[in-house]
């Protein structure tokens, strides 16, 4: 099973909020209107949808392979 590492380019984020609705356990829109990461890594594949739906392409998800 893969673990996903999330990175948000906060300089790109425009606060559309789509990511936080798709992966609320991993991402949120802060009081400043910018998305932030709640957990650095997660095994929830919803973060992939969150990244692909971001209009500003501000979210990058890296698959971290776990050692057997």
């Amino acid at each position, binding site marked *: 099973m893969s673990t996903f590492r999330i990175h948000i380019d906060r300089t790109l984020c425009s*606060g559309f909020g789509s990511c936080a609705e798709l992966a609320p356990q991993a991402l949120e829109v802060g009081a400043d*209107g*910018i998305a932030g990461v709640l957990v650095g890594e997660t095994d929830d594949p919803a973060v992939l949808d969150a990244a692909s739906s971001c209009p500003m392409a501000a979210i990058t998800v890296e698959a971290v392979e776990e050692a057997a």
Partner: protein
Amino acid sequence: MRDPTFWILARAAGLTAYVLLTLSILAGLIVRSKPFGKAVRQPTVIDLHRFLALLGLGAISLHGLALVLDSTVKISPAALVVPGLAPYRPLWTALGVLAAELIVLVYVSFALRRRIGARNWRRLHWITYGIFTAATIHGLAAGTDSSRAWAIWLYVGAVGAVGAGTAWRALTSGPAPRPASHSTTRPAIETNQLGGNR
């Protein structure tokens, strides 16, 4: 007697494309302005925005194909992509060709937004207002049905809705949010990236 099927199809497809384009723009304005708050899910509206644009492109393709197949006005396949080649009201049909090509550009730019840069993608998206203006003028000036009351109301409704949505956006959005600090950003991950261009 001339078969009017393709002529009618061309007119219907053109008007359908205009309606779909208008609805796509309105969905895009909802994504930006969030007038319904949490009652409407952002991912759903983003998908709807893109799907309506894709349907609109399909209707535009049908509009062009039907015009080529119809014999009322001689329009070559080349005239569908080269503005000004169509002999019928060349200036107004050229506007339609240009608008259609720009819609393709804006639609494709979403998938390429990582490559061209999100800021360029956003700048490109502003062209949509020009596209809508060009499509409206094209429909009014080149459309066979433009003098009919229902068609006039359709254009008035579309322009009014996009105008109202834009005014709402201008009044409520303000400047784009900016993070207070960049200190939380980490270097962009270069390898094994997921989540883009899927």
